[in-house]
């Protein structure tokens, strides 16, 4: 399983070619790219940062768990860091499997889980300022939901 961070462009073609093997009937590729707007506000560029050592371990864990859960043969997972321009690939996931169904499911599970649990953050730069993107709340297994305050 190839799991890496990149400070410059992710070599998508190389990753795609590299993962294919004899027993595979399908490779599902997810290519996450930088959009030119956020809720209609024009984005200039993004900057991604990570708690790298932990994020890499988490991504390796996701790749291994995907193989286990969905019975796919192999997973490649690459994430960009630093400044990204519009249209560039921020994350690339390739899943190779004998059958397409498992590959689609595994690929979707990896991106959905990565977005909620892997310590990576992005700052969005607009014409008139920059903000850290609001992440989704952590799953309750990581941060328990605070007990609601009971009104008196």
């Amino acid at each position, binding site marked *: 399983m190839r799991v890496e961070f990149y400070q410059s462009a992710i070599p998508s073609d190389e990753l795609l070619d590299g993962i294919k093997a004899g027993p595979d009937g399908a490779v599902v590729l997810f290519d996450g790219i930088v*959009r030119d707007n956020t809720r209609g506000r024009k984005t200039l560029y993004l900057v991604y940062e990570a708690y790298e050592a932990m994020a890499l371990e988490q991504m390796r864990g996701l790749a291994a768990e995907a193989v286990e859960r969905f019975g796919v043969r192999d997973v490649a997972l690459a994430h960009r860091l630093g400044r990204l321009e519009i249209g560039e690939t921020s*994350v690339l996931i390739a899943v190779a499997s004998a059958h397409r169904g498992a590959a689609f499911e595994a690929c979707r599970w990896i991106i959905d889980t990565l977005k909620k649990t892997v310590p*990576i953050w992005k700052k969005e730069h607009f014409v008139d300022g920059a903000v850290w993107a609001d992440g989704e709340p952590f799953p309750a297994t990581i941060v328990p939901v605070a007990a609601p305050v009971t009104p008196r």
Partner: protein
Amino acid sequence: MHVEVLYFGVLKDVLRRERERIELAGPVSVEALLGRIRETERGNDSLWESLAVAINGVYAGRGDLVRDGDEVALLPPVSGGLGWAA
């Protein structure tokens, strides 16, 4: 004893630093360490309640103990991958 505390994402901007060494009399819970950092800092309640904490690269609970030499990371909700939740 001392611990090394790392800050990421919006926390770096709020606290105006990426890391610091904090001296402690002895092992304390994650909750107690968070309380101590928060005492002197700004930042709204929802940010502090939404944080995850990792000890030496592994997610930790609020009751877990921080020990001498540990690396403790304060992690705001993550936003890797692609665009907004939509």
